């Protein structure tokens, strides 16, 4: 193939090498940098919200309009432009070709285009801060009719830019996604069977398939809402009286939007969670020097979660006014998904059991992930179980739940992953002391922020409230708690600057890493150069003889055996027949 020739003479000029690059590693870094930058905007927005919630009325510039704009932009940025982009565009791009032994993505030009289209979507999104009326304040769910009617900030320009940006983002995600799926299926090196792939690749692979299936629902609902807003169609707009005026809309269904949105929105949770599951499996295994427990079960669990995630969406709509009998079905499917998810948790814990656990920074983040994911997953059992959900719906319990399960947990994995693979990307280690400080503040801080929110939610405090004064059931102590939560949020946000500083500082000053500092078995650590050069593997592609988890194999001279070590080194994956009866 063409890229085999390129391997010896990669792009030479600065522009083709770092800007218009078609190298998956450069594109991954580009994706990561933009996602982190826009993520910092998202963190800043959350702190502005917390300023108002913790100290209501003390900051004049945060009026109700701005507050709702902060809420909305924070949510959308974190879910889509940070987490989705970072896991698929960042980790996916970097890890897939290196982990499966490919020279690059199958469609390098499309890959480059994917990044630049993503960049455009971020520009359009952020430009909404500068248009008349400001960005939309409709909440990240953008529910119509409210999103496009007066009474909601940014109903004039902000919502249009938001929808256009989402549509552009989906184009980018689709171009990237087709690439990832094709590369996994077509470009694996000799010996790299599907069931020898690291779980990180499995997680990203399944998440990409979900993205390709789910994003079209958001795409069409975005286009339909744009038409409702600009041309006066009535897809989502029934006959209404807004601010005393009869509107021309007629016959549309606001619930249709909610179905489309959550048909995308729930798989989206797993688009973020599955790569995190995969990556954390690898971190736990490498840093406890132990093969991942129940690899095949883990793969099946990823597949089962992926399939089930497409049929649980309406658990976001138990009190939406849809036919209430749907509640039985969606509560059942939602709780079933807890089984494969719990299996993954067990297997991480059992992997640690009798391991040789090194408390490296990536490992600390992985352990912290298990803890925060357990609490976030368990509160999902409250909200998925329809009659428990009814009183809790749209309260701070929901805010606590989804932040724990798809905010904090995946972000901890992002950090763990970056501390883990930074040496491969740059050839240098991140500073350990800074990493430890960053870890402890982030882990303890996020617990301090979100744990008490569960209780405020059970009390009945609704989410998306600009202020809570004069509600008789909310005691003064709840306001005090809100202040402490805000202070914790400021501290955690400040700690993220340490992380960014570490990323920049270690680029030049970090300790030289060598090619395999964690002594890991998977293929990306076996490249001839670190950082890997264009084409990844030099003249010859690696040949794989075993799975990625040959750690502490009895009688082996070292406590890991690389995937491409000669076959006689041993450490082969368990024979399929041993477990087929369980998982088939």
């Amino acid at each position, binding site marked *: 193939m063409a890229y085999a020739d390129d391997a010896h003479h990669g792009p030479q000029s600065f522009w083709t090498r770092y800007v218009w690059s078609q190298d998956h590693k450069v594109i991954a870094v580009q994706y990561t940098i933009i996602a982190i930058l826009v993520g910092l905007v998202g963190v800043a927005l959350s702190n502005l919200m917390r300023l108002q919630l913790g100290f209501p009325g003390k900051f004049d510039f945060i*009026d109700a309009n701005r507050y709702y704009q902060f809420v909305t932009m924070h949510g959308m940025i974190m879910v889509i432009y940070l987490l989705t982009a970072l896991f698929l565009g960042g980790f996916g791009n970097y890890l897939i070709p290196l982990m499966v032994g490919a020279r690059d993505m199958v469609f390098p030009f499309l890959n480059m285009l994917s990044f630049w289209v993503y960049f455009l979507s971020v520009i359009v999104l952020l430009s909404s801060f500068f248009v008349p009326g400001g960005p939309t*304040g409709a*909440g990240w769910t953008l*529910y119509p009719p*409210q999103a496009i*009617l007066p009474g909601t*900030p940014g109903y004039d320009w902000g919502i249009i830019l938001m929808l256009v940006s989402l549509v552009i983002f989906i184009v980018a995600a689709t171009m990237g996604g087709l690439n990832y799926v094709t590369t996994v299926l077509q470009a694996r090196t000799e010996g790299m069977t599907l069931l020898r792939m690291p779980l990180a690749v499995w997680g990203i692979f399944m998440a990409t398939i979900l993205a390709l299936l789910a994003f079209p629902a958001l795409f069409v609902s975005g286009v339909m809402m744009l038409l409702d807003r600009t041309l006066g169609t009535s897809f989502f707009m*029934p*006959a*209404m*009286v807004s*601010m*005393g005026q009869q509107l021309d809309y007629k*016959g549309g*269904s606001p619930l249709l939007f909610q179905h489309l949105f959550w048909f995308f929105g729930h798989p989206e949770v797993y688009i973020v969670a599955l790569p995190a599951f995969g990556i954390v499996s690898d971190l736990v295994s490498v840093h406890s*020097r*132990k*093969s991942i427990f*129940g690899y095949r*079960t883990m793969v099946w669990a990823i597949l089962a979660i992926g399939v089930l995630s497409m049929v649980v969406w309406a658990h976001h709509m138990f009190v*939406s*006014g849809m036919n209430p009998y749907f509640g*039985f079905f969606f509560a*059942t499917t939602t709780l*079933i998904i807890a089984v494969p998810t719990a*299996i993954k*948790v*067990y297997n991480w*814990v*059992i992997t*640690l059991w009798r*391991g*040789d656990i090194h*408390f490296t920074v990536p490992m600390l983040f992985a352990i912290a992930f298990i*803890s925060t994911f*357990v609490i976030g997953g368990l509160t999902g059992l*409250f909200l998925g*179980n329809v*009659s*428990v959900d*009814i*009183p809790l*719906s*749209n*309260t701070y319990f929901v805010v606590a739940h989804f932040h724990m399960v798809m905010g904090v947990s995946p972000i901890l994995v992002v950090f763990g992953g970056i501390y883990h693979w930074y040496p491969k990307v740059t050839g240098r280690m991140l500073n350990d002391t800074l990493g430890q400080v960053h870890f402890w503040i982030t882990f303890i801080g996020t*617990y301090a922020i979100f744990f008490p929110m569960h*209780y405020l939610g*059970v*009390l*009945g405090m*609704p989410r998306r409230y600009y202020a809570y004064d*004069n509600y008789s*059931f909310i005691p003064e102590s709840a306001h005090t708690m809100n202040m402490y939560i805000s202070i914790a949020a400021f501290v955690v946000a400040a700690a993220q600057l340490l992380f960014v500083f570490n990323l920049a500082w270690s680029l030049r000053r970090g300790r030289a890493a060598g090619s395999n500092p964690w002594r890991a078995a998977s293929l990306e650590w076996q490249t001839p150069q670190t950082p890997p050069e264009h084409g990844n593997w030099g003249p010859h592609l690696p040949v794989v003889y075993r799975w990625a988890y040959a*750690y502490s194999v*009895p009688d082996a001279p070292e*406590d890991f055996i690389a995937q491409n070590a000669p076959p006689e080194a041993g450490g082969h994956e*368990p024979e399929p027949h*041993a*477990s087929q009866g*369980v998982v088939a």
Partner: protein
Amino acid sequence: MAIAIALVVLVVASVLFHFLSPWWATPLASNWKQMDDTLTITLVITGLFFVVINLLVGFIVWRYRHRDGHRAAYQPENPTMELWLVVLTAVGIMALLAPGLIVYADYVRPPRDAMVMEVVGQQWQWAFRFPGKSGRLGTSDARFVTASNPLGLNPDDPHGQDNVIVVGPEVHLPLNRPIKVLLRSKDVLHDFYVPPIRARMNMVPGMVTSFWFTPTQVGKFDILCAQLCGVGHYNMRGHVVVENQAAFDAWLAKQPTFALTMAKTAPPMAAGTAATPETSAASGADLVEQGRALAQSKGCVACHSVDGKPGVGPTWKGLFGSTQTFADGSSAPVDDAFLKTEISDPHARLVKGFGPLMPQLPVTDAELAALSAYIRSLGTGAAATPQAGK
């Protein structure tokens, strides 16, 4: 090592937090004790799981921390154990799901003899309707909504004529009678949420949604909107007064019927309960008090604060007597005439920095006078200028 201690401390702190926390569900005021029970079941099962997993991880990372010369065990899988874990988890999940679904089966089937109450939402206020003597609610549609027919009832539907209309934030309900709540919205999504009642449902324009409950405690409870409905969302206030049947009947009898509100063509009853001003007797403090009640019942306070806090619209504190600049650059002092123009035709001139959001509400001259008096009473701030002395 530190991480093991941290996990144990987290578990202990979480459990302590749970038992010491002053925040838990509000005292139940409806029949939905079963919902609280399923919450408790879920909390116990998941709480145990949380404690066990975290302590186990804490123990493991302490026990199997790296020590020189030790090597990890090699145990890639254990199909029997994995099968057992699947089965046990599935059983645990069913134990959680079953009670939840049993409660939900009650939730979707309102009792046949339930009393009907309709709740109508709009940005950012509540209105209510009860069937009259005939026991039926007349049909409604957004296109029927006018200033004198704020709930959009079909004027030609005979079943609607005796319906009792309550426009305002306060509604009364009889104790211990099942209520089937029908929900409508005139504009965007809302959610009728009374925390001590537990049951709730979204209000969706273009359709009627419903749920049911039985009030079991006498008292006055906050109504909140729990579905983001625009900038005034957090201020969409109301309250439910639960009282005995006799008191409820007396209250209901004082509310106007639809036929009555339509008969008084120009000035509708509009403001609900005690808020309608008696023009002849109104003077001074009375008028201010009526204005305050009107501002509550018409939902003005959702956007206009009275304590200087920023809101969707200009605050009323210090407003009267100040000079306001309009979007076109012109300006005018705030006096009674200014307020009358702004309230009766809010979109004619916009005060600089505020959007065209204020609904045009039906207001009688008497109500205007009361509102003006109230706003004037708040206008003694530093911003007041000499020409305000009318």
